């Protein structure tokens, strides 16, 4: 049942009015925004950091690129061990009994061995030793490939990525393949090969982005630009420009326990999933504020509206005390 006040709030206003030119107001607002935008654009410009390339990675930190290539062959990289939607190597994150990531399935299959290393290498005019290494690799059993690559990956990890200190061992063709891919990247041929994957029209950069993320190059660049998630990076921008400040609440959760502690189970270890759901709930809450008890009454209890409508309240006659 509607109260008299509710009916009054919904009814057309019959009190005092004033002239209002909606078209004039809109035009003035538009001109103001256009001028302000032009001034900001002329004096501030906009951010545009050059994208990273595999060429830049291999040239500036070839050992890291090489080690990452070995990880791709060994199946130990971030992409190779990710799970859905790229592969079935892991179950992914969960929300208690809900394994949404796993249930959604592999919709974007990535085979880090072939997509990141073997196929790109095969597209090149190659030296005899690389051709021979590729032939050896392709002829080997899956078990043999795995043993070669993981043995070499372990050896590199033991010397903390210092390739010159890796002892000789039974690594099969892996060192030659990794060096071949590193040389290919240094020459600038890997960027296009990863994107095209033998095709002509391509608009999907997933493989490039994921390969980048497996090494230190992208991560270091993000740290240097103050874009890491642990430092509110989600709402930061490169250079001295404002970023997506409207993502502050989303970013906020990553700064506090248990979300910022990967060791904390179940929430910290599955922070991405929990925060995603939390933001979904809060977004729904924003829409439903008018029906949420307590919150919907805040504007009546905290009299900020007295300032907004100060002219109206000033013009009102003093209320007569109720008997």
């Amino acid at each position, binding site marked *: 049942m509607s109260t008299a006040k509710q009916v009054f709030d919904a009814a057309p206003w019959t009190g005092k009015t004033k002239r209002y030119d*909606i078209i004039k107001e809109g035009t003035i607002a538009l001109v103001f925004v256009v001028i302000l935008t032009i001034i900001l654009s002329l004096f501030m410009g906009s951010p545009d950091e050059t994208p990273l390339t595999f060429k830049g990675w291999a040239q500036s930190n070839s050992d890291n690129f090489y080690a990452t290539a070995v990880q791709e062959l060994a199946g130990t990289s971030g992409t190779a061990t990710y799970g859905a939607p790229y592969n079935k190597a892991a179950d992914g994150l969960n929300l208690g009994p809900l394994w949404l990531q796993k249930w959604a399935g592999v919709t974007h299959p990535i085979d880090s061995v072939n997509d990141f290393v073997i196929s790109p290498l095969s597209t090149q005019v190659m030296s005899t030793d690389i051709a021979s290494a590729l032939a050896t690799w392709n002829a080997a059993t899956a078990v043999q490939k795995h043993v070669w690559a993981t043995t070499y990956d372990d050896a590199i990890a033991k010397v903390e990525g210092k390739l010159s200190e890796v002892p000789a061992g039974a690594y099969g063709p892996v060192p030659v393949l990794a060096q071949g891919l590193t040389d290919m990247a240094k020459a600038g041929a890997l960027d296009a090969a990863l994107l095209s994957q033998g095709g002509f029209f391509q*608009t999907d950069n997933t493989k490039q982005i994921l390969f980048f993320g497996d090494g230190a190059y992208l991560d270091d660049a993000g740290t240097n630009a103050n874009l890491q998630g642990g430092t509110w990076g989600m709402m930061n921008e490169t250079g001295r420009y404002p970023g997506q400040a409207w993502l502050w609440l989303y970013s906020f959760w990553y700064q506090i326990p248990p979300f910022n502690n990967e060791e904390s189970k179940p929430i910290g270890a599955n922070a991405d999933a929990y925060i995603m759901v939390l933001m979904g709930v809060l977004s729904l809450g924003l829409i439903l504020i008018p029906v949420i008890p307590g919150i919907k009454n805040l504007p009546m209890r905290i009299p900020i509206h007295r300032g907004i409508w100060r002219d109206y309240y000033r013009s009102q006659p003093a209320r007569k005390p109720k008997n």
Partner: protein
Amino acid sequence: MSEMWTAKLRNKWQKNLPIEKLLPDDQPAYVASWIYVFGVLTLSALAMIIFSGVILAFEGPAWYHTSDSGKFVNSLHFWSVQLFFVFMVIHLWGKFWMAAWRGKRFATWATGAVAFIASIATAFTGYLVQTNFDSQWISFEAKDGFNSVGVGAWFTVTNLGQMLLLHVAFLPLILGAITVVHVLMVRKRGVVPPIDADPSLLSEVK
């Protein structure tokens, strides 16, 4: 005649939203605060976003990297988005403290809130199609959130083609439609009266 769908729709439209409400030349006297301008400023910034965005769309996502005029148009797009969000957040807070959902205005509030959320999604995809380092970084980082709840299986932030189409076609259509409905709701219901406005005193203040 009155059974015709067209006639019914026209009659309903004329009853709920006559031209006098759509293009008013007066308004309640209590509408006297700077907070009221942030709605129209938000719309103005949106117009600027669409204008600059259309130019960018015609020239392609990589144009602004190599052209001074492209850089300028990209800057217009960038700053109009920043202004859009500043104006919209102030507008939203203002409407919250006015409890602007009163008087059968729930749909007005809800469409505004949905427009805010749709704007975040649209801006987010915009950051993904900049074809610069930012796009690389954001797409790599953001994929984990979407993948973690299964959404990433279809909404692939690392897929430039998909993000570009969503950013320049689908999401602007959604946002535009919600914005139109929101503005029509505002015109239909009018500006919410002051919280303590007393119906019994109307005749005295008129």
